[in-house]
């Protein structure tokens, strides 16, 4: 039976995490339909139709899907779920929000945050902040799965497949978007960045966070991340947080500046290819996972590194 992948987008642009979910679907095997639900989002459907592995795109265009409220989106997915063996979505904030609703309405378990496909019904997922990997088998007729983006390659481009319009479901009217405060940044998106410079509590203030990390990030063409302590202290916005309860990243290079390396932080970055740690405490746990550790005061080291790279 075919697989349904729910696209993530902002009505204008398809989010890259969708490509990783499509890769996971390809590994499961079978035809892959992509559902694009939104408002005035035809461009997104066209982008989805050009992703390698996709069989067909199904487009639902209605005002009440514009903000991707979980209630309306889940109801729409459930209405269109019959005939599919698997329903997949990226394990992003948006995917985590609506997908469990889909599973509950279908009366099936959800398999969260998979990092590997073993067979059509068996998957590997991290538990305990990534300190253990559970191989789980679903006995449900439909498998509802969220996909950890960093564990699957992004699917590439192919010649376009057809886009077919689907009827919208009713507006349940259970919730309403009041507003969004999105962080504006010219930098690459954290989960898709090749290089990340991340700062911790040691930065000491929002001013320092920016004045110390930005030049280094500029020199490396990097995205900027943060530990929870730095976010809680107000040095960085919430969407910078890397970790068990923030974003999961796996860049080619992760530079941890003044971060101690708590389990919950490591959970979000330990699959990075190369890790650099800058910390003044030689015993800091971050050095246990760092490929290159530099013991020193970040207020000296970070500017010197930025200068050396320019």
């Amino acid at each position, binding site marked *: 039976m075919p697989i349904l992948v729910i696209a993530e987008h902002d009505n204008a642009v398809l989010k890259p995490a969708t490509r990783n979910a499509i890769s996971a679907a390809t590994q499961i095997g079978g035809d892959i339909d992509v559902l694009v639900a939104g408002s005035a989002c035809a461009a997104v459907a066209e982008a989805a139709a050009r992703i390698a592995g996709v069989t067909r795109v199904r487009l639902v265009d209605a005002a009440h899907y514009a903000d991707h409220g*979980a209630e309306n989106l*889940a109801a729409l997915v459930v209405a269109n779920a019959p005939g599919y063996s698997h329903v997949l979505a990226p394990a992003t*904030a*948006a995917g*985590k*929000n609506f*997908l*469990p*609703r*889909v599973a*509950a309405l279908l009366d*099936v*378990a*959800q*398999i*969260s*945050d998979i990092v590997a496909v073993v067979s059509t019904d*068996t998957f590997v997922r*991290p*538990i*305990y902040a990534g*300190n*253990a*990997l*559970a*191989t*789980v*088998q*679903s*006995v449900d007729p439909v498998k509802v799965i969220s996909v950890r983006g960093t564990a699957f390659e992004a699917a590439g481009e192919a010649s376009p497949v057809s886009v077919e319009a689907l009827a919208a479901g009713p507006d349940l009217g*259970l*919730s309403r*978007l*009041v*507003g*969004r*405060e*999105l962080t504006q940044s010219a930098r690459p998106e954290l989960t898709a960045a090749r*290089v990340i410079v991340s700062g911790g509590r040691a930065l000491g203030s929002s001013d320092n966070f920016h004045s110390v990390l930005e030049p280094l990030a500029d020199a490396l063409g990097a995205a900027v991340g943060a530990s929870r302590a730095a*976010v*809680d202290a107000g040095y960085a*916005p*919430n*969407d910078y947080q890397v970790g068990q309860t923030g*974003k999961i990243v796996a860049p*080619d*290079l992760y530079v941890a500046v003044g971060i101690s390396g708590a389990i919950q932080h490591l959970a979000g970055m*330990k699959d990075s290819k*190369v*890790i*650099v740690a800058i910390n003044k405490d*030689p015993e800091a746990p971050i050095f246990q*996972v760092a*490929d*290159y550790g*530099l*013991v020193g005061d970040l207020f000296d*080291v970070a500017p010197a*590194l930025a200068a*050396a790279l320019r």
Partner: protein
Amino acid sequence: MKILVPVKRVVDYNVKVRVKSDGSGIDLANVKMSMNPFDEVAIEEAVRLKEAGIATEVVAVSAGLANSQETLRTALALGADRAILIETDVELQPLAVAKLLKAVCEKESPQLVIPGKQAIDDDSNQTGQMLAALLGWPQATFASKLVVNADKTAAAVTREIDGGLETIEIALPAVMTTDLRLNEPRYATLPNIMKAKKKPLETTTPAALGVDVAPRLKTLKVAEPARRSGGVKVADVAELVEKLKNEAKVI
């Protein structure tokens, strides 16, 4: 309005867990257990709403082994008024927990249910959304701010999303899951711990609630992830740049 707060007993967040050598699960023998940190935030939010005169009663619920009573006593010490234990030794998965909570909601008719956004052991991040779906209620996940409107028929919730923050308005009754920045939970004081011992704690079972809790996912094995071996310490910035260029080849 009444608030229901589901609380889960989990391995303390400071514990570095170990996988059992036979690959059957996590070694939980003699490991420190605590209330899931997100649920402490949930209790705190509910208790603050009561202190502000918005909520009338805070009911804590836990499903699991008999020793989840300890977690419920903690909730009571933090300010919950009474507690319900749904006792079972079955391995509960999120869908089963959501069904149990739905049955409790049907009896208790809360205006707001506040679960944590995820439990730090299984990291599923599902239960609240599933509960909302089963009840046909609105949901507001990953909340960092809650404002209940004056007539208590709706609430504005600020949510932490991938690009920043989003505020939505939801009709009540509803389910709201907590993110860590919603508030800073208080500590239980000794007098309150003593008082908690006298607060009502009712016990029920999945069978009494008419809920089938049979697991839908079978854990075939639990393994340790590939361990990252620590690397080298470099002496200075020049050596770091040289290694990144010529050894790691990432810049």
